[in-house]
């Protein structure tokens, strides 16, 4: 609890935590958009979301070892993951659409174990921790009291740009309209000549691409490791639960808020409890929402 006193004595430090948290929260927003998309359109919760993020990070890191600047790795990661997502859909996920929710949960859980272990294998990426330093330096604000790594600003801008592009794509393009139609009523969409199977494939691939972009940012801002994917799944799920599936602005707000909350918790409780905080927060949020609905004799569906 000494750290709380520290925050009270030096308020500028809490500004630092807040800014840092909000900026990195944008990365969570990307993965959460993907989850909301797949959840809303296909009614599947993809537990392997975090592994797709980490895989995107590995793509950028691999390019980085060949001398490519990691910022250039973002579109490459997104493109590669787009095809990974398409392949995943064609191999497994198409069997999960319109199935019992337990089947989809457990099957994507199995995929997540498979991807983790595959990435962890020495012939693939191995169990080492990696990161790719973009070498962008830092920005000093308020006479040097606040230090912001430029890459975090870039990540924030990038996440906003991708989110805006996604919104335009969903609103304006033909494919986006097909996705929305399928989400509203897949049977009617099929009758109107929409190839819903292709729409599902596209949706899942888009989700994977979003995760890939997020992963490229993760490897620049923090580190990646084969086994730390699950926390991104949980963050995405939490953000979507708080915001609601169809609420784009809400997802953004919840993601940025989560980033800030996590940063404060990590500082106050100690860094070893930051992950514990995220998982505990998930339980608390679900219980809180279920309790509020329970008073009206409803359940969270």
């Amino acid at each position, binding site marked *: 609890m000494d750290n709380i006193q520290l925050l009270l004595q030096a308020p500028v430090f809490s500004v630092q935590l807040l800014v840092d948290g909000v900026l990195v929260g944008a990365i969570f927003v990307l993965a959460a958009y993907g989850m909301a998309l797949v959840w809303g359109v296909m009614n599947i919760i993809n537990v392997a979301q975090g592994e797709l993020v980490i895989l995107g990070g590995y793509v950028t890191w691999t390019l980085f070892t060949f001398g490519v600047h990691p910022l250039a790795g973002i579109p490459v990661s997104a493109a590669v993951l787009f095809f990974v997502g398409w392949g995943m859909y064609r191999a497994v996920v198409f069997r999960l659409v319109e199935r019992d929710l337990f089947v989809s949960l457990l099957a994507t859980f199995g995929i997540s174990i498979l991807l983790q272990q595959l990435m962890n294998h020495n012939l693939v990426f191995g169990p080492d921790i990696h990161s790719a330093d973009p070498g962008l330096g830092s920005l000093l604000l308020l006479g040097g009291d606040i230090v912001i790594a430029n890459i975090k600003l870039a990540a924030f801008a990038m996440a906003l740009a991708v989110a805006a592009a996604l919104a335009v794509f969903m609103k304006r393009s033909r494919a986006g309209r097909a996705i929305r139609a399928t989400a509203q009523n897949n049977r009617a969409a099929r009758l109107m000549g929409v190839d819903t199977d292709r729409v599902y494939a596209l949706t899942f691939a888009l989700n994977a691409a979003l995760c890939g972009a997020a992963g490229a940012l993760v490897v620049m801002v923090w580190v990646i490791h084969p086994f730390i994917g699950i926390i991104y799944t949980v963050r995405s*799920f939490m953000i979507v639960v708080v915001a609601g599936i169809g609420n784009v602005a809400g997802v953004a707000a919840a993601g940025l808020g989560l980033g800030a909350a996590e940063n404060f918790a990590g500082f106050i409780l100690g860094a070893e409890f930051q992950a514990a905080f995220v998982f505990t927060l998930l339980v608390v949020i679900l*219980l809180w929402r279920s309790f509020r609905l329970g008073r009206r004799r409803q359940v969270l569906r």
Partner: protein
Amino acid sequence: MTAARAAGYAALVAVAVAAPFVLPQYQSQLALLWVMVVLALSWDIVGGQMGYNSFGNIVFFGIGVYATAVVQRDLFFDIDEYAHAAGGVASQLAPLEYLGGLALGLVLGALLAVLAAAVLGAGILRLRGHYFAICTLGLGIAMGEIAGGTDYIGAGSGLVTPLFPELLGERNRFFYFYFMLLAFTCFGVLGAVYRCRFGLALNAIRDNEDKAEAMGLRTTRYKTIAWCLSAVFLALAGGAYGNFIGFVDPVDTAFAGPTLGVWMILMAIMGGRGTLWGPVLGAMIFHVSREFLWTYLLGWDRMILGLLTVLIVLFLPLGILGWLRGRTAGRAAAAGVKPSAAESRPSSSTSQPPLSESQP
């Protein structure tokens, strides 16, 4: 119980008792086999019979592991000596001390686990579907993270359990019989529970919770009791498991979500969830094949686990028993419409127990 069935059970018990003497070199693996049976059976109470797919039942196992290890440490160890060695010491205890510590730890662990199940269940069991599953997943990981950061229980460097006193005979054989008895007890208790009204209530919740509630069942109470029942057996298994392994690691031994936590679900599904024998069958097949085959696939074994999860869930969602039942039912009603095994869950009439037995 017919004579043939009684004879069958007697034969199984005889095989189980004789196994460690016939195959002494496989004793520890056989002991683990019974642990797996308990894990699968206790997962199936809530996951199979009640239809609440929990990814976090490992929490109660971990509570048992830690409670027992901490009780054993604090009862008999010289704290100064222990603190001095920074977790690197395992004291030698007299047999009675050891057994007393183990028994007290197991009882306390079971009580704590039930308390946790009741408190957590009051909130978490109100969630349904996806939300329940992911909430329990988060709970399991959170407990592992918290245990890994708490100094009192050894934090990330873990705890060493006391050495097994030599006067009590062979360590693996002792734990083999403990786990065997636990598995038999679990099987017997669950069999009795599934045959009475309580089991029917759980099946009703699985089939349609809103209707069950409308029929006047206090669903929250049933769900909480079922979770507590599951927690008791998990904690009793966990407490001895920590001693059996000899070292308590927060993520590898106690809150072992990626290994034991996934295996218990997989075993129950593979055998056939919502049945009494299914989890037992699944645990046997899973453990034996894992021990014999996976040692040759070192480094790839966990990947195969992931693949297996996907394949079983996609192509054998009702498990081996469910598949066999579907085949026999399909043959019997060749003219009628065969229920699609993939979509429909096992209905209460095809799974345990027949209605007539419980209603006088």
